[in-house]
């Protein structure tokens, strides 16, 4: 989600690039992305470029919002003087 959220709304990221940059395998990344897609956080677009299959990923509005909430929660943990929050 960090990679997808760093781009603008609607911008699509190549699955192959994401796999390479994260050092993940097709299976690992594919499973992770499937869960994100089922949650409505990303959209997966399978197409052809120069007659080669290509998969592009886009963060949805809901996905961006969920990611920003997650980052905000992490920052709150760092800023909180009481230590990690529970629940």
């Amino acid at each position, binding site marked *: 989600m*960090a*990679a997808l959220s760093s781009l*603008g709304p609607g*911008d699509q990221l*190549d699955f192959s*690039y994401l796999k390479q*940059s994260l050092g993940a395998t097709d299976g690992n990344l594919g499973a992770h992305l499937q869960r994100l897609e089922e949650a409505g956080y990303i959209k997966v677009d399978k197409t052809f470029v120069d007659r080669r299959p290509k998969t592009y990923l886009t963060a949805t509005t809901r996905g961006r919002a969920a990611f920003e909430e997650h980052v905000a929660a992490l920052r709150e943990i760092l800023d909180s003087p009481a230590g990690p929050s*529970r629940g």
Partner: protein
Amino acid sequence: MNVSPEEARESLAEVGAVSKATWEAAAYRGSDWMFIIWGLVWLLGYVGTAFLAPYTIPYLGMRVSVTALWWVVLLAGGGMASGLVYRKVTPVRWASSARNVGWLWLVLWAYVYLWVGLLVPFLHPEGTRGWIALWKHFGVLLGTVPMCGYLIMGLWLESRLLFWLGLLLTVLLAAGLLLPWLWFWLWCGVAAGGTLLVTGLLARRRGVSRGEH
């Protein structure tokens, strides 16, 4: 969220690193090939000008400068090659064309043609020396337009490489004005074109296009 401050700090650092790497890949992928392509364009363009400048060819009742045709072919070829490379290597399909760096270059060149077009009616060089000086200044203008683009992109993308490359080549091109006609064009070809070419070749070896700079 049941996460320790240390884990939160590590997660945020990883988020920052991945975000930065993605954005840089979108902007830099293929930059090594761009330096090589445009290095060749400038090298061939400037060195070609040194030897082609006196020649014209007849076309539709006019005399057309061979140098001008040479530059049109090189710039068009460079533009097409850049577009093909970018399309092949970029990991991003942009939703908005405004975020496509290619538009920055098109707008920059369009404005330069506009400014030159606005100024040309007021330029009346005197004698051969005046014309030589004028064409040398145009030569520097032609080369420093993309250097301005590099400086802007260097500041925008926080890239030391692009910024200092733009600045260095601007200085080298301007310094060439001190040289006589033939040496000026050869100097621009080697200094500007050669530097870009070498930068591209070094970048390919060091993986700059993968964001390792």
